[in-house]
């Protein structure tokens, strides 16, 4: 899928709300670095997804701008995976600094395990299986609506 700006944002939010939620439910009981009750872990995990979505709108604007320098106006597959590094780092430091205070303090192991599992799953779904139920999605720059 070669995205448009609105398609990028819609795809991100849609995948967070579907794949992101499912993976959070699956992975949170297993994450290392925390002794919190499962209910609290779920709350933390889901709030991280909300933060990834909210910050993501800003990130997508930046990616869209960078994409303009590419003749093809495309976004190679690898970029979709590797952007987990800057996005993860920014969110992690925001959490550590207390700037995102609606999320409880979180250990590095918990954060990175959850974040990486969710990100890789979303990337895998976006690069193939997403096209199975949504046959018009890839021709509309990633728009769902």
């Amino acid at each position, binding site marked *: *899928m*070669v*995205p*448009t700006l609105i*398609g990028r944002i819609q795809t991100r939010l849609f995948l967070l709300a579907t794949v992101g939620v499912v993976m959070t439910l699956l992975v949170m009981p297993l994450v290392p670095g925390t002794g919190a009750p499962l209910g609290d872990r779920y709350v933390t995990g889901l709030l991280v997804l909300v933060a990834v979505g909210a910050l993501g709108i800003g990130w997508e604007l930046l990616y869209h701008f960078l*994409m*303009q*320098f590419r*003749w*093809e*106006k*495309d976004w*190679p*597959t*690898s970029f979709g*995976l590797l952007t987990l590094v800057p996005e993860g780092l920014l969110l992690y430091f925001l959490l550590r600094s207390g700037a995102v205070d609606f999320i409880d303090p979180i250990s590095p192991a918990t954060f990175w395990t959850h974040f990486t599992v969710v990100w890789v799953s979303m990337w895998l779904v976006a690069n*193939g*299986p997403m*096209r*199975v*139920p*949504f*046959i*018009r999605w*890839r*021709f*509309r*720059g*990633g728009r769902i609506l």
Partner: protein
Amino acid sequence: MVAAAGIPMYDVPFLTVGGGIGSFVTLDYLRIYGVPTEQMKVVSNIDHPWQTYEFLTRCSQIPRSERIRSDSSSRPDNIWGFPSYALEEAWKDKNPVYLWQLFTEPILNDYWTPRAGTVFENLEREAKRIRYWDMLVKGQVRMVRKRNGGGYFTVVTPPEGAAPTKRIVFRSRFVHIAVGYPGLKFLPDLQEFRTKYSDYQHVVNAYEPHEQVYEFLKTRPGTVVIRGGGIVASRVLQRLFDDREKYGLKTQIIHIFRTFVTGSHGPHIWARRKGGDGWAYQGFNYPKSVWGGQLKAEMRKLEGAERAAKYKEMGGTNTPKRRRWQEQMRAGRAGGYYHAVQGTVDRVEPTPDGRLVSYVRSNDGIVREPVADYIIDCTGLEADIAEHRVFADLLQHGGAYRNPVGRLEVERHFEVKGTASGDGALYASGSATLGGYFPGVDTFLGLQIAAQEIADDLARRGFVRKMGPLRSTAQWFKWAFNSPV
């Protein structure tokens, strides 16, 4: 009137004309949406949908074992494009390197592209699955005309002996035309040479069989002139370089570019394509975003001169920058057997010893006169759409007209503008519709995009139910298990 003339007439709600990959993907979509074979026919003069495509790719030096220039997820046999060709070939060849290439394209690696054979084998599988041959009617379409009561008549000449009359007629509510390229056009100076000296052996088009060139070069050292700067020129060069290496030949290559690209080019920093050594470089035949990204969205809104300007901005002959080709050309330049020059050719004449001299004028005024044994025209010029009798008739009698780049003007849903007839509709896809709201028409994925638009428009008209996520998923499983739709 038709009945009175004694011409047999058959009713079929949906008829597609052409029988190549354009017809195939449209039928594939409609079968998966739920249309039974009894409601559709395809009229064609070829036996299987990939026949013409395979002929042209083979001539232009892509046998089944070689890779075509197409994205991994552009699968004419699979409307979802999942699993992509790369996944399939990686699985079948037990070769995960393909997946690494897919992941790192186009940054650290060339674009991964499928083997021609993979494409054809899968098309055959899907054609059987949707019962393509139950819908095939062999014949040559003469014309498609509006019918007074709505819909269309399609007049067909069946193969000799196949029908009791010379013509048969189909009456249908919907007609789809996907007849491919109207024809090849030669460079004018080469056409003149061929006609004047009746020599069709030494001046050849890369899309016609020209194996004699490579066979001759195996028997003695020779010189070949290549004309054109696109993918076909790259392919033909590769064959010449490969043969040189494989058989220790002494072939000299003179490559004439009309437009010699020396570096990045384009009007501003947000519209600059890479290039060099004569070539403009691009992974596929359009920038990737025409099939679903930004360029597709932009073009969809443009009309008239603005649309033509956008086509011009992203157009121009180009080829992918593949690492192997770059190496071969570098070696050729260093070894003094590959010479690329800018120039336009005034004329071509035979020499007294039976060779060919080209009079080449460069932009800087220098005139060169290279002598060669063969000239291969790799420009891939296409003939005007009116060269095809069905389009000529539609333009003259059917209400169709031309778009800003001179081809058939179609709607965003690929209905040919000006040809509506009662509750019927006439659609077209493929090369003839280049210049419309969607640019990548003459590509695998472009044909599928057109097919989806057409299928959704037919759903709006009540011919079939629009496919949603549930049916799509169920149908995907049927595809995966190769069970009937």
